């Protein structure tokens, strides 16, 4: 009986899974792009810009994601900014993630010795070239472990988009629960398992990437 319900629910869960993956992909894309720009700006831009970035980070890290999503989806229409729930979810997830990611990249930038940028300058590189060719490649390598962490957090937090009505994995589970209350334990166990499998796979992939781009003297793991 319960097993039947489970099999019946699979197609709708698959639909939900696809939406979850899309939210994750767009959210992390926005968060990473913006995060890199913010971190670079915070470390190398003139004071007023760096200070504005600091305020942005503090604000976004200080608001619960669900509140942020409500502000964007329900609040912004009051001042004439309308968007569908899916877009609102991506913006909310992306902005929040950018604030956290900026911290990851800034930490990485701070751990690059100052001599690296001096050497770049001494070759006649301007600031932009030095950042792009010397700082950025090292920063990204150093950021992989922190980024993997942020990626899995974002992936799981897409479930909060359920709160503004995005029909993702969580919302599909809720539909099944409403239709067939008896299956609730099994369905949400299955959903939990799906999230777990996604995170597990993501972590495995990131470890592979980390190893692939690892280089002598740039190991990001401890030796035992």
């Amino acid at each position, binding site marked *: 009986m319960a097993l039947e319900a489970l099999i019946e629910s699979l197609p709708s869960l698959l639909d939900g899974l696809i939406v979850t993956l899309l939210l994750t992909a767009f959210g992390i894309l926005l968060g990473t792009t913006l995060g890199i720009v913010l971190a670079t700006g915070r470390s190398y831009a003139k004071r007023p810009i760096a200070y504005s970035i600091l305020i942005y980070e503090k604000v976004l890290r200080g608001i619960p994601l669900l509140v942020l999503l409500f502000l964007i989806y329900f609040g912004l229409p009051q001042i004439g900014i309308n968007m569908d729930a899916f877009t609102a979810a991506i913006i909310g997830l992306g902005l929040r993630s950018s604030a956290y990611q900026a911290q990851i990249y800034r930490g990485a930038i701070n751990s690059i010795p100052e001599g690296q940028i001096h050497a770049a300058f*001494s070759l006649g590189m301007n600031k932009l070239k030095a950042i792009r060719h010397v700082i950025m490649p090292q920063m990204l390598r150093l950021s992989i472990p922190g980024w993997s962490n942020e990626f899995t957090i974002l992936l799981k937090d897409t479930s909060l988009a359920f709160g503004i009505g995005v029909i993702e994995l969580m919302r599909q589970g809720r539909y099944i629960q409403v239709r067939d209350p008896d299956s609730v334990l099994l369905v949400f166990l299955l959903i939990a398992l799906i999230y777990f499998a996604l995170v597990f796979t993501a972590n495995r992939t990131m470890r592979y990437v980390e190893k692939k781009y690892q280089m002598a003297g*740039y190991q990001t793991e401890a030796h035992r």
Partner: protein
Amino acid sequence: MLKKNIRWQDIKQRHTDENKEEPSMAMLEVKNIYKSYGTVEILKGVSFTMEQEETKVIIGPSGTGKSTLLRCINQLSPPDKGQVWLDGEEITNPKTNINKMREKIGFVFQDFNLFNHLTALRNVSIGLEKVKKMEKDAAKKRAMQELTRVGLASQANQYPAQLSGGQKQRVGIARALAMDPDVILFDEPTSALDPELIGDVLDVMKSLCGKVAMLVVTHEMGFARNVANEIIFMEGGVIVEQGAPKEMFTNAKMARTREFLGRIGALYGEEETGG
């Protein structure tokens, strides 16, 4: 070589023609440099000149401002006061494109500062590619020539972490050389090295003597004595005395110079200050 001479003539010509504010006739002219960090005045009016392909060695006790002086020359830390002229252009002028000028000033760091994420070859070629806009293949070829010149052709594909200190510093020298600079500034290039590795680096530097101008801050008295065209002795943020090595080592005018050379000569042993 020929090209350089022609350019030199042009510059000389231009200066005699225009005769603008105190034109610099030397290749490099450092004029009355002052630099403070906070309330501590490190450089208190340092002036000297360098000609093409000349080797000058700056010696002096630690904390005297020797390294600061080098950083003032290529504007890694701009001086508070004073001017630096290279090839008739004032580097210290805010209107000057400092990046363009830095292409002409090689810098070899005490702690190497090789780009950790790049192989030895890419360390040398990156400036050619990204700054001089050379084609990737041409840049690699040129970089390989420079690595061969410093005896590291077989290490071309290794990362800095896989090289010894002496090898790293030779890559550092190759990186500076590849840019075809007018002058290379060496900031204590052997201070971070094991004694047995110092020789390789000094040999490379000796081989450059007379091919490119070198301004070397070092405690290697043997190098100063045998290779330099002139020795500059600095203390307390000023130049105490400068002169040909032979004169400085045997017949220094200032008591302080004699004392310093005597002490450091005894310390480093192999080069006695007499005879």
